[in-house]
């Protein structure tokens, strides 16, 4: 009994420590955003929401969020379309060269992102393409599409293809088979793939920093303003960015719940 209690106690400490380590960074960002000094110091002498006021009033805050948002949305669309098709080729159909394809597709994931970013920047300039948010979208896609392909493939591996034949046999057209059977079966994979794509793009620094050119997505702005010219505006914008992505995720999950009930 005493040993049991010790074990339970140790378990609680262990879990508590992990949660603390996970959330300290986020909490500390919130804390520093509430200061009015240029130096990250704690405890604050003055608590202030000035940084948030400044952030909301500033055009830059809106523009970096918009850049990141439009990039993330483009990446989501590309990743879902290419990822679904790729997953079909990866897991659904048996074709000549499939095993080579399966290896090639996961390769970019193992590439260090800064190296990938540099390589892509060099390729873009070799092709005479001016870097901007669109090139950054392509850079994100190179890294994110394989991940989403894998996420959707996992759904396909546990999927009985005979379901499609059964639907066809019961009078469904090819289009109805896709709509009534294939898509609903793949939907959970597509949903989590899209969520992954959004969050990975929204928070990506190493690829964006090389390839976004004159456009500044949120993580690049945070990084450069922390390196030079830091003010509490930086953590305030970081908090706003985190809240936005969290709200989007919650909204999507709630929508899915409602969708499922209906």
């Amino acid at each position: 009994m005493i040993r049991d209690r010790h074990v339970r106690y140790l378990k609680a400490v262990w879990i508590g420590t992990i949660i603390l380590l996970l959330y300290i960074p986020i909490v500390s960002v919130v804390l520093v955003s509430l200061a009015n000094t240029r130096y990250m110091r704690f405890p604050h002498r003055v608590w202030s929401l000035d940084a948030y006021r400044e952030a909301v009033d500033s055009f830059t805050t809106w523009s970096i969020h918009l850049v990141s948002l439009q990039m993330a949305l483009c990446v989501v669309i590309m990743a879902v379309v290419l990822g679904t098709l790729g997953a079909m080729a990866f897991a659904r159909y048996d074709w000549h060269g499939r095993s080579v394809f399966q290896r090639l597709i996961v390769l970019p994931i193992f590439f260090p992102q800064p190296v990938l970013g540099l390589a892509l920047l060099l390729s873009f300039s070799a092709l005479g393409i001016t870097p901007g948010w669109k090139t950054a979208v392509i850079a994100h896609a190179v890294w994110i599409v394989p991940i989403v392909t894998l996420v959707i493939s996992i759904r396909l591996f546990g999927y009985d293809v005979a379901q499609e034949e059964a639907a066809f046999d019961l009078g469904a057209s090819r289009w109805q088979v896709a709509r009534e059977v294939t898509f609903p079966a793949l939907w959970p994979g597509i949903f989590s793939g899209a969520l992954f794509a959004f969050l990975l793009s929204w928070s990506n620094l190493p690829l964006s920093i090389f390839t976004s050119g004159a456009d500044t997505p949120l993580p690049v702005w945070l990084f450069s303003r922390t390196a030079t010219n830091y003010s509490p505006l930086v953590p305030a914008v970081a908090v706003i960015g985190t809240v936005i992505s969290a709200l989007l995720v919650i909204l999507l999950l709630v929508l899915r719940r409602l969708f499922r009930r209906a």
Partner: protein
Amino acid sequence: MATVTPEGGTAVPALSLQEITRRFGALTAVDAVTLDIAEGEFFTIVGPSGSGKSTLVRLLAGLEVPTAGTLLLRGEDITRQPANQRPTAMVFQSLALFDHRSVGQNIEFAMKMKGVAPPARRERALELLSLLRLPRDYYDRAVTQCSGGERQRVAMARALASDPEILFFDEPLSALDYRLRKTLEVELKELHQRTGKTFIYITHSLEEAMVMSDRIAIMQDGRFVQVGTPQDIYQRPRNRFVAGFMGEVNILEIRGRGESARFAGLDLPAPEVAGAYAVLRPEALQAGDGGSVRFDADIVQRLMLGSRTQYHLRVGDLALIAEIGAGVGNLMEPGQRTRFSFDPDDIAWVAE
């Protein structure tokens, strides 16, 4: 395409296969199969894996297109008609239930595709649930929560819901345990009688085929080796392959073809076919002097099978299997030397 019915009338067959062939590259999976299946018949195709039986049923269902040959449904050419336009439905080996849908939605699928209104769909689905002896409240249950036997019944209800002229079954019971399989075999037979539809059933088990079928076709290497009633096939297998398919039988190679054959030093009547094998069913051997061909055998092994007892015998260098009904005579002990006999009429002669 008129055939003579047993009653002496003529009828158009439900399904008529004419030289149906399917090749995959160099492999001929189905080799010029010709067959008429009568309206309302329970027809079973039996064969080992790789015999082409699954390809054949997929051709009949419209999931594959034949390389050559013609397929007529009630006299109408449907050779090139895809599965979604054929008035047939299939119960798949994996069942292929839609896992993201409820039992009710699974059953209603074909009606939904036809554009039947939801209330009518629901009513028909509930009817089918009771036809398949599933409780009505299964309508809203997730198929993933159903047991193996229940899933089986849902798959059958789903196929019946499209109101098909012909139902195909591609080894649907093969994944189930022995007892459940036996129960469902009987239920399938009853379902066939109640619906009056034409059933075409695929299995690798001749035993399963015997229980349910009006006629059986034995398939090997893309061809039908023998087509007949269960009794025909049981009593008069055409060759060693068919005989061997029935499970444990005694197949004796008879020396002295054409002349009077000898067995364990005994004279047998002359074989009916050249190069003959004598197929002797285990239950044709009886203990004692009841049959006209008598011999002494050593009992090597005794297996209790419930309704009958199986004895493994040795006569000289010949191994035989005998099965005696439970309650017939006394149990004999291994090691005992015993008189056995059989009737020559019980021999089925087969060539190779």
